[in-house]
């Protein structure tokens, strides 16, 4: 059995709103094994960010964990007190955010910020600054020692994202959560950041939970992939299972939509017709049935079970061709 750093079991999260209860996540089961990269892919509104906020316990005030457990290193995050949570965040679990420019504080030098996050370590400020500089050169920032005195606005977007990655890894976390870390960057920088994350992950042996809506980035970086749609994890498996043998109709449709996989130049690109269903009035049956090309009678009535295709490859679907 693979030992898991993070083990999410049967997690359901909802938001109380004036218009009704939004069932943002429903019955999510996901494991992040030690020192592996797990990618979560899905379109806007599928619940990726809600899932991370539940894992790191930084949820909106109207959010409610309706059911399930989030086990991080064996303990259920829900039953920890705020001081205990603070002991985990930024030490065992750290995070890289989507927008590097707003993740850094504009009025402090990056050296100050990188020293401050090591507040738990009882070493001298000088030693902390040295560690910060070492980490900066590790993420590919030239002339690191002198650049510690710079402010975030002195750096470009790609550089800032390298700095936030350096800060997240400075504490040597067991789990790094990366929320769309390359979305705000150009393609040339995107591949640089992926390569960097890959190298650092191999060095530090930390597990990464990587969120993105960009399929190709997931394919290149991750070991395991979960595909989310409208609050459910519709398919999960190894990266090869998902990209080479996708089973769920949604995963297939999503892969087909990607213009970079279409070799022939086409004037009209494939799309997934229809809209994401309302998460307040959930449709009966399979969540994808009204957009699914293969939907049958049973799909409109009952929620599909989690079907195992191979040992680690499962999908929520009635009509799998196995």
């Amino acid at each position, binding site marked *: 059995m693979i030992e898991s750093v993070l083990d999410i079991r049967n997690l359901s999260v909802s938001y109380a709103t004036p218009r009704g209860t939004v069932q943002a996540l429903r019955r999510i089961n996901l494991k992040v094994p030690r020192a592996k990269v797990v990618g979560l892919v899905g*379109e806007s*509104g599928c619940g990726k960010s809600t899932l991370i906020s539940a894992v790191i316990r930084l949820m909106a005030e109207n959010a409610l964990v309706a059911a399930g457990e989030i086990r991080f290193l064996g303990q259920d995050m829900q039953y920890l007190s705020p001081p205990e949570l603070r002991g985990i965040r930024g030490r065992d679990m750290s995070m890289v955010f989507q927008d590097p420019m707003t993740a850094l504080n504009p009025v402090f030098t990056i050296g100050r910020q990188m020293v401050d996050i090591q507040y738990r370590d009882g070493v001298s400020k000088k030693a902390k600054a040295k560690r910060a500089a070492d980490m900066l050169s590790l993420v590919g920032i030239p002339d690191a020692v002198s650049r510690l005195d710079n402010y975030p606005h002195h750096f470009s977007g790609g550089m800032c994202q390298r700095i936030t990655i350096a800060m997240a890894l400075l504490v040597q976390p067991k789990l790094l959560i990366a929320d769309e870390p390359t979305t705000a960057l*150009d393609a*040339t*920088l995107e591949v640089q950041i992926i390569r960097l994350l890959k190298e650092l992950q191999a060095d530090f042996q930390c597990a990464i939970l990587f969120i993105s809506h960009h399929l190709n980035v997931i394919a290149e970086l991750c070991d395991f992939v979960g595909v989310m749609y409208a609050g459910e994890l519709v398919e999960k498996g190894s990266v090869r299972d998902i990209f*080479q043998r996708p089973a769920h109709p949604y995963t297939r449709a999503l892969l087909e939509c990607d*213009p970079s996989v279409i070799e022939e130049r086409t004037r009209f690109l494939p*799309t997934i017709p229809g809209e994401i269903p309302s998460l307040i009035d959930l449709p009966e049956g399979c969540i994808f049935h009204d957009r699914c090309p293969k939907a049958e009678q049973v799909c409109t009535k009952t929620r599909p079970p989690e079907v195992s295709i191979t040992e680690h490859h499962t999908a929520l679907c009635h009509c799998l061709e196995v």
Partner: protein
Amino acid sequence: MEPLLEVDQLRVRFKTKSAVKAFFEKDDDPYIDGVMGVSFAIAPGQTYGLVGESGSGKTTVARAVMGLVPVHSGAIRYNQNNLVGLSRDRFKPFRKDIALMFQDPAGSLSPRLKIRSILAEPFRIHGMMPKNLPQEIARLLKMVNLSPSMGDLYPHQLSGGQARRVGVARALALSPKLIIADEPTAGLDVSVQGEILNLMARLQDDMGLSFLIITHNLAVVRHVSDHVAIMYLGRFLEQGPTQTVFHQMRHPYTQALLSAHASPDPDAVHHRISISGEIPGLVARPHGCEFHTRCPGVQEKCRRQFPDKAIAGSDHQYYCHYPLSVPEN
């Protein structure tokens, strides 16, 4: 065929400091070059793609065509009429023919106006209020596959894809001939991205529109544009018919950009042409060929002088001292 839009040696410069400060600092050229002499033409019914990283000057080209930034030199001709140096009033009629779709779909819609009022604004500004405005707005919404009842909503009630479609509808309001689309798919999910691009293709077929599409997404450009220009620090390093540029590229930057895309196959072997670092700032524009600081094939000459224009084939041009050889077949 006569081009609809012709841009000739367009140059846009931005002032970096005041005249007084420049005088005391003995800076006789207090400018940076946003766009450094680009030329291209768009034929009626065609799509021209402008590709480049952030900060390469793509949006500045679009804004110059719309008369939103002052042009330093060069010409912009729309249907044989020069647009450079026109006064606000004399430019106004051309804005009916050239519409702009802004980059940020939600941010470009006023949060205080209903969709109906947003779509009525172009008519109001140009004093062309149709008698049957509600029908006209319903027609525009239908054209972009939105239901006419959406006119009663505010922008924050729309999804990203819907907001983008309202942007398309607004651009279509005055029946333009040319639409400039600034990053029409940025920030959209892949399935929605396809819908927007298909919508634009359909409108082009139905109405004979021309498009200038600005994007950093090469996968999109490959499918939608007839011609493409690869932009870097205000210059077109390579331009030509899309198929030629993608399959017979001569400039190392084009090759690097094409190889920089992540592939959806986890087992793919990447022959990445690694370009390190990032696009330099305009203030510190490198000497010689601007790309030499990141070019894998850089040589001494590249640091000294900018290459002359080289012609590789019909409409296919590039600027490089040491171009790539054309792959056989």
